[in-house]
């Protein structure tokens, strides 16, 4: 006698400890196997693009912070590059170097949250506490620079709001020596952990062609084995002066493009960021960081699309100027917004518990998915 089965609809979120915010996933299950995942987003839609049309160019910077709140420095970075392109201005060398240092520190901080919460999602609470402990050190560095812990308004069009604190270089070097062993510690604690590997290896495999067609970028794309990093491939600021590698997924414990690869790319990237910061600190030129800030920001008519490599992938700003002091339209291409679109493909035919592992490896920030 055939057993009668029927599909079951399960709602995950918007309040769920593992959805990293207010995401709702509608799962269609056949027993424990996932047939279809429909993400419902918009629970944090904060009207960023409408605000842009009402604010002047410098006023928008704090709002870009609040989009991807784990990588606020990098959001400002991308936005000001766009406006500077429209204005056609050059910024002083020192500003570029400080931006790179801040951006890379931010990348480490963001990856630490990604790794820590990923561990916590899968059931390992200790890495979460360790990651947040180290993140606090970076936040202290930001705090002595601009006074804020999370949302900085530090990178301005044409310059920076403050110069570095006199102690900053010393403290950052101390941080680098402090943090190198911590990556090893994290590897011992989580990366090579038997249970962790069981949960993540060979789960949610993302083939490369699918990834490109879905517009996936960042550690997810590199996890699938594609050397694509805008810092090298479409270089901006002064990244072309530094020597760093682009880690890609190699399928060390499973298949190329599985959750473990995506996770491990992040770990390796933290090491590369440390190298970048070291080089930037060595070469840091003297100069004035506020001299090039324009008195009035009024770009000529035109549009520009700029993109930078955010910790989560390609962050693009499409800015249309109509010659006034506020933009006509700003559209943001959020990396997590695009990356989240692939959930259905990744989760198909996996178990319910794997959804958590896959979602954590995508590393979304809802603020920027919904904007």
């Amino acid at each position, binding site marked *: 006698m055939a057993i009668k089965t029927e599909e079951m609809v399960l709602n995950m979120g918007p309040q769920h400890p593992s959805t990293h*915010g207010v995401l709702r996933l509608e799962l269609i299950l056949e027993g424990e196997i996932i047939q279809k995942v429909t993400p419902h987003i918009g629970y944090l*839609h*904060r*009207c960023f693009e409408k605000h842009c049309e009402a604010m002047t160019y410098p006023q928008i910077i704090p709002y870009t912070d609040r989009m991807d*709140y784990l990588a606020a420095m990098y959001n400002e970075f991308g936005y000001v590059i766009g406006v500077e392109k429209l204005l056609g201005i050059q910024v002083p060398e020192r500003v570029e170097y400080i931006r790179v240092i801040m951006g890379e520190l931010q990348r480490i901080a963001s990856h630490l949250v990604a790794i820590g919460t990923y561990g916590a999602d899968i059931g390992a609470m200790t890495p979460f506490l360790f990651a947040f402990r180290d993140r606090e050190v970076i936040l202290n560095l930001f705090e002595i620079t601009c006074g804020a812990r999370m949302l900085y308004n530090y990178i301005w069009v044409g310059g920076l709001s403050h110069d570095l604190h006199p102690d900053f270089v010393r403290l950052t070097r101390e941080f680098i020596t402090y943090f190198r062993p911590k990556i090893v510690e994290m590897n011992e604690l989580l990366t090579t952990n038997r249970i962790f590997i069981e949960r993540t290896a060979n789960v949610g495999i993302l083939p490369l062609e699918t990834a490109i067609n879905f517009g996936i970028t960042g550690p997810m794309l590199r996890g699938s084995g594609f050397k694509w990093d805008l810092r090298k491939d479409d270089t901006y600021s002064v990244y072309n002066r530094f020597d760093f590698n682009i880690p890609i997924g190699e399928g060390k414990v499973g298949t190329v493009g599985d959750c473990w690869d995506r996770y491990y790319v992040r770990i390796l990237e933290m090491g590369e960021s440390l190298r970048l910061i070291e080089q930037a600190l060595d070469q840091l030129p003297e100069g004035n960081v506020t001299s090039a800030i324009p008195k009035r920001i009024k770009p000529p008519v035109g549009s520009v699309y700029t993109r930078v490599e955010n910790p989560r992938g390609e962050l693009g700003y499409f800015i249309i100027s109509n010659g006034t002091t506020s933009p006509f339209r700003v559209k943001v291409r959020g990396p997590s917004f695009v990356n989240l679109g692939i959930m259905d493909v990744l989760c198909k035919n996996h178990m319910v518990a794997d959804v958590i592992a896959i979602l954590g490896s995508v590393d979304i920030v809802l603020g920027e998915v919904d904007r």
Partner: protein
Amino acid sequence: MSYLDAQFDDNIIIAKVDDLFNWARLSSLWQVGFGLACCAIEMMATSASHYDFDRFGVIPRPSPRQSDIIIISGTVTLKMALRVKRLYEQMPDPKYVISMGSCSNCGGPYWEHGYHVLKGVDRVVPVDVYVPGCPPRPEALLEGLMKLQEKVRNESVVKKSA
């Protein structure tokens, strides 16, 4: 018998029911593990190693039905507001609400052009403590929690507090 037990004979402690209840309540305020926006990251930082929310007895619970306190940490949008209300209604009495950050206090930076932002969570649920800041520092959230404990300490089982 353990060491501590051997130190004391049988004892009787006399206390008012109010004091006993309040003391128990205020030292184990379990929180709904629920974050909304940027402020949620600061809330996570508060419960992580450096600031250690645990020492105040605040433990995140996955379900609202097991919790005493909900920290509205971030922007409440119109789409989310009804869910926040639902969450609040699912919590058992006595329940407390901390509104964390300008956004949930009054709409924050989105107060003017935010067509999809609820300008203050107090339009859907009653709030006990408002913590200002964008985002509030973890210290500020701890202060807010202590304010709430202060409030709980002065409650009474028979008299309804305001």
